[in-house]
């Protein structure tokens, strides 16, 4: 995949890729997904970070976390199964050592926050609020890989609304809430997030899964269960993006199996204003950067001048 080439001055030269999710403005709708591209800076030698629309950091907690024992990953057909256990350097080290370096890029920095306790989230958000380098916070209330805390918030509308409000009270930055696919009604969770003051919905986090080695009889993951990601979950993600975009009415970031330009278009049509690329980066570190070029080329091919024209553009066969 490579960028489009046009004679200079050609009107088709540059379709407008910029998008706005509430107060979060991105140069283009391609972000890297949390936990799949470290803290952003590390991989400058493998891809042109300045081409990205945004970088979502690995999930950060108040204290550094060492993560889960191995094995941490497995590879079922069509996807990836992981249980990293939110290993991270902690918010303080990130703010002191990583964030400054990220200032150089047009790519917007979204800080993914994770807490064990209810109050952790507000404390984390409060801590980052002062830093202009942080464009938005993304609340990970839906990580399947930690035994206590975290996940429950994302499964309980009442709790979640309170949680989001507690964050809303301490920061003016755009708040994205990351939705779990492992619930009966993502829409209900999304509405709770909205009621709590969320600005953006990120959908989806990994799907709870499990795999077993038929010979050793061991689970592929030390934690037995883990998060399924990659192409296998894309149809689940598209469905949830479509539902929440239509019914909750907050801007949505589509996540799940994004790898090709077709995938990006599909999420945009379903109602996403931007997408995050995760597992695909492991296979190809330049995946996100290449999608920016590929998307521009595709818009030209489709004769679409502004990427925002595609958002929610799916044409259902009937009302649904």
């Amino acid at each position: 995949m490579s960028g489009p080439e046009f004679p200079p001055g050609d009107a088709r030269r540059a379709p407008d890729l910029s998008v706005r999710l509430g107060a979060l403005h991105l140069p283009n709708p391609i972000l890297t997904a949390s936990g799949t591209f470290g803290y952003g800076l590390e991989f400058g030698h493998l891809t042109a970070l300045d081409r990205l629309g945004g970088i979502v950091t690995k999930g950060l907690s108040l204290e550094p976390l060492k993560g889960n024992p191995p094995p941490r990953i497995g590879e079922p057909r069509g996807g990836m199964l992981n249980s990293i256990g939110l290993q991270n350097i902690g918010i303080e080290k990130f703010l002191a050592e990583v964030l400054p370096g990220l200032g150089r890029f047009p790519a917007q920095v979204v800080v993914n926050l994770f807490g064990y306790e209810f109050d952790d989230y507000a404390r984390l958000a409060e801590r980052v609020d002062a830093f202009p380098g942080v464009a938005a916070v993304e609340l990970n209330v839906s990580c399947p890989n930690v035994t206590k805390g975290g996940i429950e918030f994302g499964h309980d509308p009442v709790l979640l609304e309170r949680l989001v409000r507690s964050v809303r009270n301490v920061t003016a930055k755009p708040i994205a809430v990351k939705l779990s696919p492992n619930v009966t009604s993502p829409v209900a969770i999304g509405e709770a997030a909205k009621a709590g003051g969320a600005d953006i919905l990120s959908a989806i986090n990994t799907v709870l899964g499990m795999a077993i080695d038929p010979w050793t009889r061991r689970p592929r993951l030390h934690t037995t269960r883990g998060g399924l990601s990659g192409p296998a979950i894309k149809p689940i993600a598209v469905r949830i993006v479509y539902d929440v975009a239509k019914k909750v009415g907050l801007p949505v970031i589509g996540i799940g199996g994004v790898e090709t330009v077709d995938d990006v278009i599909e999420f945009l049509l379903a109602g996403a204003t931007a997408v995050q690329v995760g597992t695909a980066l492991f296979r190809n570190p330049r995946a996100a950067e290449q999608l920016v070029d590929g998307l521009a080329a595709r818009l030209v091919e489709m004769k679409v001048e502004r990427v925002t024209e595609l958002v929610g553009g799916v044409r259902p066969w009937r009302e649904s």
Partner: protein
Amino acid sequence: MQPIDTSSQVVEVVPHPLPYFSLVLDGPEVWREILPGQFVMVETTDGLEPYLRRAFSVHDVSKTDRGARIELLVKIVGPGTRALAGKRPGERLAVLGPLGQPFGSAAAADSRPVALVAGGVGSAPLLLLGRWLLAAGTRFDFYYGGRSRLDLVRSAVFESLAQASGGSLISTTEDGSAGERGLITAPLARGLAAGGYRRIFTCGPMGLMKRLAELGAEYGVPGEAALETPMGCGFGACLGCAVELVDGRFALCCKDGPVFAFDAVKW
């Protein structure tokens, strides 16, 4: 040196007794600087099976006029390695590397030889290491263990290399079809008992490397092992390749390893 992602061309697939083969790839100049123990991440298909790249130690390196050529020694165990076995000359594969920390050098002060211990295809990274030891004038014995003679792939090459260094090849098979019957740890233990080695370098099944670490400790001989873990990315992004260390921390096999000192790993 920073790893780079190259679309490299398949030069040839060299068959060895199944399930082994060598994959020879042409790549950029930086590959010339690859060190023993380092590895590459190879895209095995453009489809879904498997989706993620596969990790392979660099078995051998040589210069070409404009770049470098690497050889991977591969054992077919599943879809990815099977896909690689079917590649044809001229096909292009995305190859990311060089990755990881290489084997350390063998303290020159000590005049005793070095022991290279391979379990099956664990021999892959030890060829390049052998070449370096030879170039450094370090004598080494090559211990090669496998289930059967088929698993002692390329043992002739290892033998001549060891001999060139002044050492020799010692091999064992569990079925006795080649060398001494039994596990490679037996002859090595004898070698250590005879006070023969100043350092052990190994790659192979976890069980073997664990046992070697114990033997090394027993005889006060330091060593290094090239570990294998499932790897999602190979370049430090997924945090999936954790290796537990004695201090309780989790190191990344792809970044802090794959080579670890015997006494650093919680076996």
